[in-house]
């Protein structure tokens, strides 16, 4: 809403919208490492509680004969995720299913906060004295990197668990470039170490930044649309919202699928994997 920018200019309006509610408060939009983004954390936690509540509600009253409403929906979702795990994950690990399921549902819900009118929640918050509010947790770099980092930790954990510590080291030394004779092998070691480190680090970074970039850009476009005159906003706003439904689902799905694929790679020993 153009009116809501009030006395702010467009640049200030945008900057205002891109500032988190934090402890300690941001100074000129700049924060240091020890800043805690209350809004990001609380919205993410709130949605986590929502997921947990739904899970508890359905899980406690599972009815195999007459599944209704939410149980049906969750069953469909669960079967969908289970199918993805079956298709993409080689081997067996009971953690992958719930992990992928939680990622998909939680990221989807956090992304979906983008569809709430961009000024609505900050406007409501302003009545209780909160001046900054960013409602999309995944449009804050911390959340996508937290998720990607957790997955990265699991990747390393399972790499070591499956390949053993020595195998994990070997992966850095003799991969991706393998050679026949011993001299060539030794010569390739520095290259391999660099390549493998890049390869492994690219996984969480690309996962996290992809999600963050998409959601941040999406939010920014909603903010830009909100700067238009009120009588035209419905057109680009509606179009972008409809398109954004696709993006938030797709990003949640990609994040989930990449998690499954990366963890599947981590579960393969060197000989069969490469």
């Amino acid at each position, binding site marked *: 809403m153009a009116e809501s920018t009030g006395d702010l200019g467009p640049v200030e309006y945008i900057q205002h919208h891109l500032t988190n509610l934090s402890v300690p408060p941001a100074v000129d939009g700049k924060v240091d*490492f*020890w*800043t805690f*983004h209350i809004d990001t954390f609380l919205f993410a936690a709130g949605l986590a509680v929502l997921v947990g509540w739904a899970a*508890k509600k359905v*899980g406690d009253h599972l009815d*195999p004969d007459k599944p209704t409403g939410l149980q049906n929906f969750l069953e469909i979702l669960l079967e969908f995720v289970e199918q993805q795990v079956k298709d993409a994950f080689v081997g067996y690990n009971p953690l992958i299913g719930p992990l992928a*399921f*939680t990622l998909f549902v939680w990221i989807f819900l956090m992304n979906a906060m983008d569809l709430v009118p961009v000024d609505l929640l900050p406007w409501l918050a302003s009545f209780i004295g909160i001046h900054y509010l960013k409602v999309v947790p995944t449009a804050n770099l911390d959340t996508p990197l937290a998720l990607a980092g*957790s997955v990265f930790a699991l990747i390393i954990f399972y790499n070591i668990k499956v390949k053993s510590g020595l195998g994990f080291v070997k992966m850095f030394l003799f991969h991706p470039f393998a050679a026949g004779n011993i001299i060539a092998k030794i010569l390739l070691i520095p290259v391999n170490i660099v390549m493998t480190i890049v390869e492994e680090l690219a996984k969480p970074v690309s996962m996290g930044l992809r999600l963050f970039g998409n959601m941040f850009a999406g939010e920014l476009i909603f903010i830009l649309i909100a700067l238009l005159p009120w009588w035209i906003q419905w057109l680009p706003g509606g179009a972008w919202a409809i398109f954004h439904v696709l993006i938030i689902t797709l990003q949640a799905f990609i994040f989930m699928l990449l998690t499954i694929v990366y963890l599947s790679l981590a579960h393969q020993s060197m000989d069969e994997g490469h």
Partner: protein
Amino acid sequence: MNITVTLFGQILTFVVLVAFVWRVLWGPMTQMMEARRVRIADGLAAAERGKHDLELAERRAAERLREAKQDAADIVAVAGKRGNEIIEEAKEQAQIEGERQLAVAISEIEQESNRAREDLRRHFGNLVLATAEKILEREIDAPTHSEFINKMVKKL
């Protein structure tokens, strides 16, 4: 945009959420769905078996029905034969009884007629004697002539 300590908060939330969803939803629900899959498979197998059993039972029932019909026909035939026999026997017995009764009747009639003849004879003798007495008042002495009269009566 920097990385901040919020990251660790999010990791913590994430770990708790995964553990919770796993424990509360994923675990029970996959188990329940697996159990349901097994039950549905069993149910379908049971239905198949039931259909097969029904077929067998129908075949057996038809067999039994045919047997029963055969038995019934046999019984009817035997009964008919026996009925005829009974009728024949009854006829025979009736004939015999009839003949016997006829014979009894005839003998009774004979007896009656003999008795009647005897009575008649006696009455007639007495009558003749009385008549003769009246006619020959004095000349006939009953004891003397009774022998003669009896002879006469016997001749009648």
